[in-house]
């Protein structure tokens, strides 16, 4: 579609019918005139028209307009020069042109009977892209618009600040290993630009053109402050995200390491335990083999345990003892004892004071001597207290069952 439009646009100013255009093209190709001529004549017309139109522009263009015809000849001259230089390439060009012509002819033959619309459609779909590279015309166009004269001597007089254009020393294409490698490609572009920037700075400083922006020079920037703020925010976010991820990784590693430590500790503990058990077994064996065989089983065990305790350095001495001989112990303290008595502590309370077979069989408080002395019972009958006090020197009164038991427990 674009092609069509371009064609139409191309034909409109020339104001020729389609077929005419084709034949015209052919004629121009066959004749030896450079193809530049027609459009240049056209441009001359334009310029003249422009001269009439605006004074300012005419000032600018005047020299161009005035010199144009001579320029034209210049172009022709240069063309001929180049032709002499590149006679081989010129031959190739001719060949190409012939090819193009033949293609055009074939197209014409085929498409003559069709509707113009159909024709265009077909042309759009089946058109083979031709190699058009009219170097002469391109160079002429370049000469027409170039700011800096193409002559090297004259170009040297133009200050750099005038155009600010630089060409790098190396083609970037060669530097880029693969066009799909984004990083390498962008780096190549950046390096090329940097080279130019360095060169340009020197050139500009030499010409006395201000280059560096002073720090106190504030002006509107290309990108607004909000945008830059957003960019900064984004960068900060990225940085914090990076930091957080690093921290998380560190934590993870630590966790992993902590686990290792824990496992190690557990292993150590297990090892210790195993070692202790082994020691115990060994000691047991020793005991069995040694003179302890004559002792009773229970007694032997007790003895053994004490020995083990000694062996282990008395670590669990107290605990071991308590576990074994709780009943044989005396009461913990007086207060506790009292409380135990008052509120009760284990065992059966009822009939605790009543006599039974044992108590009646207990003759510990009985003395035959007192019985033989006599009067003891009478005294006792009068007042227990006085009797007790009277007989305190000689003998203790017999205590009750409960007391007696308690006394026995106290040892």
């Amino acid at each position, binding site marked *: *579609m*674009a092609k069509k*439009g*371009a064609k139409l*646009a*191309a034909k*409109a*100013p020339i104001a020729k019918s389609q077929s005419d255009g084709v034949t015209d093209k052919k004629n121009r190709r066959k004749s030896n005139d450079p193809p530049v001529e027609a459009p240049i004549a056209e441009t001359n017309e*334009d310029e003249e028209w422009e001269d009439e139109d605006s004074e300012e522009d005419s000032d*600018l263009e005047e*020299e161009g307009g005035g010199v144009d015809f001579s320029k034209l000849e210049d172009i022709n001259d240069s063309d001929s020069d180049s032709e002499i230089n590149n006679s081989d390439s010129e031959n190739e060009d001719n060949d190409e042109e012939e090819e193009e012509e033949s293609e055009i002819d074939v197209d014409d033959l085929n498409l003559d009977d069709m509707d113009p619309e159909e024709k265009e459609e077909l042309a759009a779909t089946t058109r083979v892209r031709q190699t*058009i590279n*009219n170097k002469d*015309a*391109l*160079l002429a*166009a370049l000469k027409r*618009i*170039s700011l800096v*004269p193409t002559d090297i001597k004259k170009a040297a*007089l133009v200050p750099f*600040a*005038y*155009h*600010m*254009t*630089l*060409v*790098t020393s190396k*083609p*970037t*294409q060669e530097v*880029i290993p693969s*066009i799909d490698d984004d990083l390498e*490609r962008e780096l190549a572009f950046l390096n*090329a*630009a*940097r080279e*130019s*920037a*360095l060169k*340009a*700075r020197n050139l*500009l*400083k*030499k010409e006395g053109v*201000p*280059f*560096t*922006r002073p720090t106190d*020079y504030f*002006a*509107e*920037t*290309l*990108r607004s402050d909000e945008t830059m703020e*957003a*960019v900064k925010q*984004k*960068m900060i976010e990225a940085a914090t995200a990076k930091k957080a991820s690093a921290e998380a990784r560190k934590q993870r590693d630590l966790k992993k390491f902590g686990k290792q430590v824990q496992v190690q500790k557990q292993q150590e503990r297990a090892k210790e335990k195993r070692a202790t058990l082994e020691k115990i077994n060994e000691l047991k064996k020793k005991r069995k083999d040694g003179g302890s065989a004559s002792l009773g089983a229970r007694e032997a065990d007790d003895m053994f345990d004490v020995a083990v305790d000694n062996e282990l350095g008395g670590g669990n001495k107290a605990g071991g003892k308590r576990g074994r001989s709780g009943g044989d112990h005396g009461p913990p303290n007086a207060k506790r004892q009292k409380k135990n008595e008052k509120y009760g502590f284990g065992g059966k309370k009822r009939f605790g004071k009543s006599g039974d077979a044992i108590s009646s069989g207990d003759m510990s408080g009985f003395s035959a001597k007192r019985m033989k002395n006599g009067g003891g019972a009478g005294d006792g009958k009068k007042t227990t207290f006085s009797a007790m006090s009277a007989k305190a020197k000689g003998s203790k009164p017999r205590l009750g069952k409960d007391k007696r038991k308690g006394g026995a427990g106290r040892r």
Partner: protein
Amino acid sequence: MAAVYKSLAKTSSKADKMDIDEDSKSSGNGVRKNKQRVLILSSRGVTHRHRHLLNDLAAMLPHGRKDVKFDSKSNLYQLNELAELYNCNNVMFFEARKGKDLYMWFSKVPNGPTIKFHAQNLHTMEELHFQGNCLKGSRPILSFDATFETEPHLQVIKEVFTHMFGVPEGTRKSKPFVDHVMGFSVADGKIWIRNYEIREVAKTKGDDGDEEEEGATSKKSKKGGLDSKETDISLIEIGPRFVLTPIIIQEGAFGGPIIYENKRFISPNHVRAELRKSKASRHVARQEQTRDNLARKRKLGLENGEAFKDKSGLDTRELFA
């Protein structure tokens, strides 16, 4: 006072310049005053990205004139009149097609040439999130790849780029300092355009590779009595980014014969069609298979439930009919 001084200075300098110009004219130097104005506009049907790119470029060019969307894709020569109306001698026209493809026309009005590009990989300043920034309207350094000098069509493109993207000296609204570079590189038959901020940083003594490079330049600057030794240049990208594939060059402004055509350019329509075709081929193959199956069945007479019959004269039915 300042204003008076300024105006006086201006007139005097102008007079000087005129003298110089006349001198140059008489001496045949032929350096024209660099006066460029660029009309920047798009067709209808541009996407938001195209529009943002256009805005970015318009912001970068103080000598640009942004206009409303142009409502035609076939009569582009009308743009010449439009440019004339706005006193512009360059036109940068964004032509969007199918709401996705962007073609950029760079034209020198009124005498041409016109270059048509296909723009790809567009990334606007905003979406790129680069750190770089520069003064609005400062003059860029235009850094062209060495390849631009090798071919005539690339030379033409370079010249047109210089007119379009280079801010002429003394443009209104332009800033007096140079703080960005525009890079134009040719790779893979395409032109890659980048925009970098120049940041001058205190030079570190660690990098020896640059030191040597810098050594030569600093010597030069010493001769000039300037101190560029202390600072090094680092570039930070600003954006936008885009890639242009040249398609054609016309001799006139939106008209005239085509003087260059890129054979390597493949239309995005064609690319898409190929993609579709490759997808369609599967369907076609399946269709063919079913048709073949049907044909085979018909040939065997299985279609109507009766077997294929040989109607020769020796058939029993024929004989004893």
